């Protein structure tokens, strides 16, 4: 039976991690739950383990993207065929996990993005972030040809082929976002969206808050442009080559 994994990167999320893990286990009982403790100092790892998650602990903080990549490596080495990544701060609803994985299980997509932008969404995004999201939506559409409503959403489901792609050095170790979607699209990954509900964070503040947001916009814009012209490694064109082989 194919194995599925929920990947939750966490850094000092002691307040929210127990409820996130519990909700994952209740909403997606067929999924294993993995928490990657990214050098927390508040006992996040012990709380996550107590809540029933498998836990990997980095010896020190190596950033969000690297924590996600640890989860991808774990999934690949342990034979998982699909992974869903969600944040530890309670923003993402574990109830969406099964719906997010469905297009991959049906063979319709390799990567599914949970979108906050739809008619029934109750998520309130501040105006500046909304402008930023529109900018990246435009960039991704122009540079990769993929139409996505929410290219900066961290709630995603990934086929094993995409895990292989994201485990390479091409994957950004700080804020993987719209830039990796461009990389994935150019590597032949089929990307689709599923409407989801997102909540305000119940744990720590967003990593895109304050002055860091300026750096984030700069860095992401640069990476999206670079990824749109960077040579694609033939070895990681797995999704496309496997479809051709099939």
């Amino acid at each position, binding site marked *: 039976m194919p194995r599925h994994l929920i990947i939750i990167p966490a850094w000092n999320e002691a307040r929210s991690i127990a409820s996130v893990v519990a909700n994952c286990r209740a909403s997606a009982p067929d999924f294993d739950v993995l928490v990657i403790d990214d050098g927390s100092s508040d006992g996040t790892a012990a709380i996550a383990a107590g809540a029933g998650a*498998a836990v990997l602990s*980095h010896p020190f903080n*190596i950033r969000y993207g*690297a924590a996600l*990549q640890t989860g991808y*490596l774990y999934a690949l080495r342990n034979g998982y065929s699909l992974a869903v990544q969600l944040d530890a701060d309670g923003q993402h609803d574990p109830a969406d996990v099964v719906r997010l994985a469905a297009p991959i299980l049906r063979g319709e997509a390799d990567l599914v993005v949970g979108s906050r932008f739809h008619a029934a969404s109750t998520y309130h995004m501040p105006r500046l972030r909304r402008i930023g999201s529109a900018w990246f939506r435009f960039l991704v559409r122009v540079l990769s040809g993929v139409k996505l409503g929410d290219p900066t959403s961290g709630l995603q489901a990934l086929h094993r082929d995409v895990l292989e792609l994201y485990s390479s050095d091409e994957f950004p*170790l700080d804020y993987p976002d719209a830039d990796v979607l461009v990389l994935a699209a150019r590597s032949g990954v089929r990307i689709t969206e599923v409407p989801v509900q997102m909540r305000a964070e119940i744990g720590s503040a967003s990593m895109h808050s304050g002055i860091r947001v300026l750096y984030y916009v700069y860095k992401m814009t640069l990476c999206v442009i670079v990824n749109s012209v960077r040579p694609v490694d033939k070895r990681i064109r797995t999704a496309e080559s496997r479809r051709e082989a099939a």
Partner: protein
Amino acid sequence: MTEEQLRALLLADSDTTAVRVVALTVALALFFVVFDAVRRRRLSESLTPIWLTCAFAVLVLAVDLKLLEAMTHLIGAWTPSSTVFFFALLFLLAISLSYGIVLTRLGRQVTRLAQEIAMLRARIRDDEE
């Protein structure tokens, strides 16, 4: 005095014994510091070529200041000191960029090591249980 005469004067004024002595001292000191750092294993041999090339260039220019004047003419500068500063800045830019590239690679390697440690820790913990 015309502009060309002024420029010629500035160039001619640079050929002094003091300049030669300072340049020779800097070149020899750089040679010594690089060799000593390698001897004490504080500097990798692979990083020495750029520093020894720099020391050699200073040495050559100290021996033959006419070469510096020729280079000054070539790049359109007015004074030899401008030429020295120009190439020194280029050198610092190049070495900063190369260290940035090295640091990026090392950062990637450290990250991958931390990821592997996390997975090994989990495996050891599972085995112990």
